[in-house]
């Protein structure tokens, strides 16, 4: 293990990292049980720093919180074959329900509505698109970097000076596209995306003026953190989207987007 990577555990535990450092360290965490344990312990230790500070919030805040939760859907639990992350309760939601991410995010109704409004031109563009085979994946586990100084291609994009990060919730998952215009590349980062239905997978698309939605590759199905290089010229695209497609990928989107990103 690269000692430099380990050393970030403390800063990460207290949120003293940038978003890009967070993304790359979380990818590391997936592979490093030692760091996961250390982060949990250091967070507990940090929490004691304010163990003597108690500020009772005004009663109105309590009422407001309780009113808000009664209108807020809870996320579906993560259902994993490994069984290492069982939640304390196992709500009755069926595993397949996690495939409906739009329902998972009632607090972003406005955002969902905006996505819906964007949907029509999006699909219209798709019809005109002359596209493109199944893209290859450029998914690099961070451990590759441990053996030497080389920085993976995805890491280079995440660290690029002009990297722009667009985030949004998708179900319980935070998903993001980090795009570097100068490198003409973009990386998709997510943790614990909702599991797609059997036989299906998430596919990435670039929204390219004049071409419509162009396949940018498949997202590997994983409960863990994924970082995927989008295939294609990110500087030519004005946005990106994600759809559920057959595992082998589609030439053009065959379902409504589960997420849309608009590049600045």
């Amino acid at each position, binding site marked *: 293990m690269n000692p*430099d990577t380990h*050393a*970030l*555990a*403390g*800063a990460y*535990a*207290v*949120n*003293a*990292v*940038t978003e890009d*450092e967070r993304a790359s360290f979380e990818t590391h965490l997936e592979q490093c049980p030692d760091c*996961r*344990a250390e982060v*949990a*312990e*250091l*967070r*507990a*230790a*940090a*929490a*004691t*720093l*304010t*163990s*003597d*500070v*108690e*500020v*009772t*919030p*005004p009663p109105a*805040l*309590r009422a*407001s*919180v*309780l009113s*808000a*939760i*009664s209108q*807020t*859907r*809870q*996320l*579906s*639990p*993560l259902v994993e074959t490994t069984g*290492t*992350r*069982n*939640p*304390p*309760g196992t*709500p*009755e939601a069926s595993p397949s329900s996690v495939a409906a991410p739009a329902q998972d995010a009632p*607090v972003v109704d406005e955002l969902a509505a905006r996505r819906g409004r964007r949907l029509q031109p999006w699909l219209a563009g798709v019809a005109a698109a002359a596209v493109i085979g199944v893209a290859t994946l450029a998914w690099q586990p961070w451990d590759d970097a441990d053996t030497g100084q080389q920085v993976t291609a995805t890491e280079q994009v995440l660290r690029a000076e002009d990297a722009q990060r667009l985030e949004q919730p998708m179900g*319980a998952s935070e998903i993001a596209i980090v795009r570097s215009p100068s490198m003409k590349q973009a990386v998709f980062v997510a943790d*614990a995306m909702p599991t797609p239905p059997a036989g299906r997978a998430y596919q990435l698309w670039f929204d390219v003026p004049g071409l419509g939605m162009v396949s940018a590759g498949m997202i590997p199905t994983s409960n863990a953190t994924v970082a995927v290089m989008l295939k294609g010229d990110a500087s030519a695209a004005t946005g990106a989207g994600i759809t559920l497609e057959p595992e082998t990928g589609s030439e053009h989107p065959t379902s409504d987007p589960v997420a849309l990103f608009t590049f600045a």
Partner: protein
Amino acid sequence: MVVMAAVGSGDTSLPTAAMGPDLVALLTRAARGDEAAFAELYDATASRLHGLVVRVVRDRAQSEEVTQDAYLDIWRHCTRYDPAKGSPLSWMMTIAHRKAVDRVRSAEASKAREVTYEATTVDREHDSTLEQVEVRLDQQRVRRALASLTDTQRGAVELAYLGGHTHTEVAALLDIPLGTAKTRIRDGLIRLRDTLEVTA
């Protein structure tokens, strides 16, 4: 900072809510949609979480928004609470801290305000003026733990955790190399962990 001016008289109860309601049980019920259980969870933890948020954000109105936001996140995510990631309180404090840090950073970004380093002594003055802060602590224990940190470790940990600065900013504030700030934060937290014998 943690060393408060006011002293709770003779209250030696543990600062965590460990002796209170069973947070794991409440979280489990809340994860099944039990709003009453969530209300109990709120009652058992709100002053700790809000205390942390106020400590980082400072502004009262903004702190209340952040605390509410944190509890909403806790409600949404409690179905996915993973004991391996920490005790319920530690997990909830982590969420609240993240929200608080996000708030101060976005506020900072929008104001693009000049970063002027205020020494930690300023923090201490500020603390003594937080009249609404109730002090209820195992002060000896926390003092002892903090005393086990070197001054440089404590400064780095406090700037990061309570100041909401990134390790890069901490390095700039303390005028130390980047890697050094990272190391001091980690070493300080490890020392704190080992002295307090906290478990995740």
